[in-house]
């Protein structure tokens, strides 16, 4: 499968490394090329350095049919805007957005998007550890 990941921070990079080892083809886009340093040197990980709002960059990332688009930049609002723009422009079926703000995550779930909210996961993990003891 061809998966495009926007944002090559800790999550983006390590997700790319994990997915490529499962046999997928990965395209990682980030506007800061120093962020690519955690990416594995693997023939199936393609790096695109540039701003996704620049049409040349988004065209380059989506030349071939994209099966999944994962948006994990550090900014919630950028994530939801990019996700909607790219999904619409390139007709991508599966889009996954990371949103830190749990309230905002709910809003975009209501709008039908697949949302990953790390804040909620962290809280529920803490609750598992802290919960049983009264």
């Amino acid at each position, binding site marked *: 499968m061809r998966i495009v990941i926007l944002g090559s921070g800790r999550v983006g990079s390590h997700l790319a490394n994990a997915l490529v080892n499962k046999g997928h083809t990965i395209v990682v886009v980030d506007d800061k090329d120093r962020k690519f340093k955690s990416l594995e040197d693997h023939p199936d990980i393609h790096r695109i350095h540039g701003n996704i709002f620049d049409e040349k960059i988004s065209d380059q990332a989506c030349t071939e049919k994209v099966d999944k688009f994962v948006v994990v930049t550090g*900014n919630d*609002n950028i994530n*939801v*805007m990019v996700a*909607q*723009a790219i999904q619409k422009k390139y007709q991508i079926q599966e889009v996954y957005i990371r949103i830190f703000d749990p*309230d*905002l995550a709910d*809003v975009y779930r209501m709008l039908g998007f697949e949302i990953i909210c790390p804040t909620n996961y962290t809280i529920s993990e803490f609750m598992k550890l802290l919960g049983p003891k009264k």
Partner: protein
Amino acid sequence: MYIIVVGGGKIGYHLTKFLLAEKNEVLLIENDEARVAELSAEFGESVMEGNGSRVPILREGGANRADVLVAVTGVDEDNLVICQIAKTVFKCPRTIARVNDPRDEALFSAMGVDATVSSTRLINSLIEEQVNANSTMIPLLTLSAGNVEIIEADISSRSEMMGKKVKEVNLPEGARIVAILRETEVVIPTGDSLFGPGDKIMVLVKKDVEQALRKML
């Protein structure tokens, strides 16, 4: 009407001022503490500090009863998110977003924002209008290696030629009116022909006096 304005920059400031003067109930939401202090000095209770792209802030601002929400921050993704929250969570009947990058306009409309305002596009179309307004002369034919041309031009209502006879108009040396186009009629002018509203003229003109002719139209 109850109107929420998000973003207290120049646009948000003037918009709020205008809306208050029009006797609307307005809440201006601004994120920057120092800016809030400035705005509060003028607008008092109509200003609230907070990040308008957060659900609890909009709730506190009474987004659920807002008739209109206007997002005018300088950041497009924030404006989009603000409007989408207002629509989705608070069922706001009308959302308006400022679009800083004109390329985002189509996306905003497709994503449910009711109206967009792009200052870049507005300025572009104003300039375009100006450019067109000044190029009322249409070159029809270029003769003699580009030194002489026949042009068609509108006579504007402010033109010094308006209401005068051909012989009363001091055309620059090197320009000769060959026809007056009046609706469907073509008038071969004599010295007594009058220039009236809506008339166009065809002029045989040397390139070097074109600018002088343009000033008379």
